[in-house]
């Protein structure tokens, strides 16, 4: 019987079985950043241990970097202390650091792929739950805690339980105005925020076959929001084409050998999965979250659920809690909710294609009065290309702020934060209470185009109507 990519990559990296039954798993690529690594380096020092595979460890700084301030010391001394600590830890341990002066700094899940560090058939760990992003390349990539960051630094391995695999087949053509972000919000809405616990998600089907790498990354990125620690897409020609010629990609004969090996990791045609789900792409609508978990989403034509719609008492409690926090009325249309802030960026939607798509449509529009709209490139590389293409000018002309690379308003560990109970249309990945920096701030997740539509109308709107591209694009 055939094997899935997950099983093949797992087997190739399994070192041995531990006493408690877990696997000692080799982590081929370790990505680190300033928030979850300093304590791990501290633990290493306490035990007089060294970084075992410095050449397989890569660092960048993203969470705390201000996007509107480029000169150090930063006005926040805590942020300054964190970047200096990372600099020192990397220098002391010979770890490559994509620092702010390299032209390569950015959100760790954007930097890895664009540098060609993220490759098929590898294992990738990072002290960040959105590490599944790298699964778009056919890697087994997942988030780990700081003690495990310590374990990887010291041994290049962690102790882990093998996961089951659920294949999610999305087949068909997405309607105009429906994007990868809508696909993943739809999947989480369907399978729930804990549906993926214990599973790796294999995303497959003709929709994924046709997706670009950046679209695949957007979906894999949010696997954890559905409870799945790992999400991946089998590597194919799209993957190889993306990687060819990137700084850390193999070159010459090594490239040809690598591609052959990468192909061999793809799930076999005759393999079976622990579970399979089929989704019809044509049924997916532009999706917007109305609540406080990424699973609380509806299509733009739908209404927010009423408390009485929920079948169980615990679900009714959850809906009531979400409605109260969001200050929404159950049963009211999602369309028309007035927003205060619009944010386009993050490891979910901070890539070049996101900005190209938005630029195409916001040309000639203006951000609505009273709305603060910010666009934050995911990396310095993305920023440079976007600026060379003149996208920044289009955004500024339309009334958006064009910022420097970082995590920005996705999680507000930097100056970009909501104030009070502001409502934010956001292309990021989490709408948890207080996620965007204000304990009462409210987040609605949606695609970058839908954020742009909300920005220019001042309320949650159907981008297809606002930009009139249903007819233009068909």
């Amino acid at each position: 019987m055939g094997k899935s990519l997950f099983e093949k990559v797992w087997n190739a990296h399994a070192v041995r079985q531990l006493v408690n039954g877990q696997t000692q798993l080799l982590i081929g690529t370790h990505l680190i950043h300033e928030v979850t690594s300093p304590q791990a380096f501290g633990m290493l020092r306490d035990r007089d241990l060294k970084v075992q595979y410095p050449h397989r460890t890569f660092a960048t700084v993203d969470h705390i970097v201000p996007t509107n301030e480029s000169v150090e010391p930063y006005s926040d001394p805590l942020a300054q202390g964190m970047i200096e600590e990372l600099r020192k830890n990397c220098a002391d341990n010979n770890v490559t650091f994509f620092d702010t002066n390299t032209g390569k700094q950015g959100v760790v899940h954007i930097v890895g792929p664009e540098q060609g560090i993220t490759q098929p058939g590898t294992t990738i760990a990072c002290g960040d739950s959105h590490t599944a992003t790298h699964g778009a390349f056919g890697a087994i990539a997942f988030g780990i805690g700081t003690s495990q960051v310590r374990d990887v630094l010291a041994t290049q391995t962690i102790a882990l339980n093998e996961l089951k695999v659920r294949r999610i087949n999305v087949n068909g053509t997405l309607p105009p105005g429906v994007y990868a972000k809508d696909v993943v919000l739809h999947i989480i809405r369907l399978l729930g925020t804990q549906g993926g616990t214990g599973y790796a998600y294999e995303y497959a089907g003709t929709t994924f076959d046709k997706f670009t790498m950046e679209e695949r990354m957007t979906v894999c990125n949010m696997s954890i929001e559905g409870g799945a620690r790992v999400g991946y897409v089998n590597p194919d020609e799209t993957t190889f084409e993306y990687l060819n010629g990137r700084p850390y990609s193999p070159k010459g004969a090594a490239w040809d050998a690598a591609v052959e090996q990468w192909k061999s990791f793809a799930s076999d045609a005759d393999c079976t999965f622990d579970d399979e789900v089929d989704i019809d792409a044509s049924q997916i609508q532009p999706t917007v979250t109305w609540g406080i978990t990424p699973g609380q989403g509806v299509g733009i034509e739908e209404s927010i659920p009423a408390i009485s719609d929920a079948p169980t008492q615990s679900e009714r409690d959850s809906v009531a809690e979400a409605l109260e926090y969001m200050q929404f009325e159950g049963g009211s249309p999602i369309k028309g909710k007035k927003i205060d802030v619009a944010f386009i960026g993050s490891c979910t939607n901070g890539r070049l294609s996101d900005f190209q798509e938005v630029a195409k449509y916001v040309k000639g529009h203006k951000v609505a009065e009273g709305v603060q709209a910010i666009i934050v490139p995911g990396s310095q590389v993305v920023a440079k290309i976007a600026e060379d293409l003149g996208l920044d000018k289009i955004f500024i002309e339309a009334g958006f702020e064009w910022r420097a690379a970082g995590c920005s308003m996705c999680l507000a560990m930097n100056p970009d934060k909501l104030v009070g109970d502001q409502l934010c249309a956001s292309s990021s990945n989490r709408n948890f209470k207080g996620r965007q920096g204000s304990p009462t701030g409210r987040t609605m997740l949606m695609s970058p185009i839908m954020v742009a539509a909300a920005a220019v109308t001042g309320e949650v709107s159907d981008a297809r109507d606002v930009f009139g591209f249903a007819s233009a694009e068909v």
Partner: protein
Amino acid sequence: MSSTPIKKVTGKGVFVPGDDIDTDRIIPARFMKCITFDGLGEYLFRDVRKTESGEEKKHNLNDPRFAEASILVSGNNFGCGSSREHAPQSILRAGYNAVIAGSFAEIFFGNSTNLGVVCVIASDTDRKIISSEIEKQPEMDITIDVENHKIWYGDQSVPCEIKPGARDSLLSGNYDPLDELLVGAGGVSKTAGALPYMQA
């Protein structure tokens, strides 16, 4: 690091209502601008317990009747969201060493177990019974019997679940895997040697 085996955890309980208690709720990101975990206990459930300006809200976590609690009782999908170990670190540093929930998010569960924070699963009905007993008698001892899959409250008990691997690790005191991983170094270089991308 081999530590003292954890066979049982005994303490008073406090009920934290709600499903999908995420890691941003457990420890808001704005308190993670630090390079050590020291002091994180102070910010556990900060925005659940206090208003933005620091006034205490009405919540079990602020109720003096539950001030002695060391076991949290909560809903489904506890610890969802971020991989931040800051979450179980803040739980531990605030004086709690066990969580009873309907289910746990995977990364949170692993991070907690590595620190010796005991996470066990109990049914909705059983958690409802336990939390109402806590409400009636806050001074009541709760004992999580890891070895025998039981939660005792007063002289009564309900069953609980814990992943077999985590249970073994707690019972043997080997829940921090680093020493065992270090022993495997020879096997690591062999596995790495067979993978072209691992070569320097």
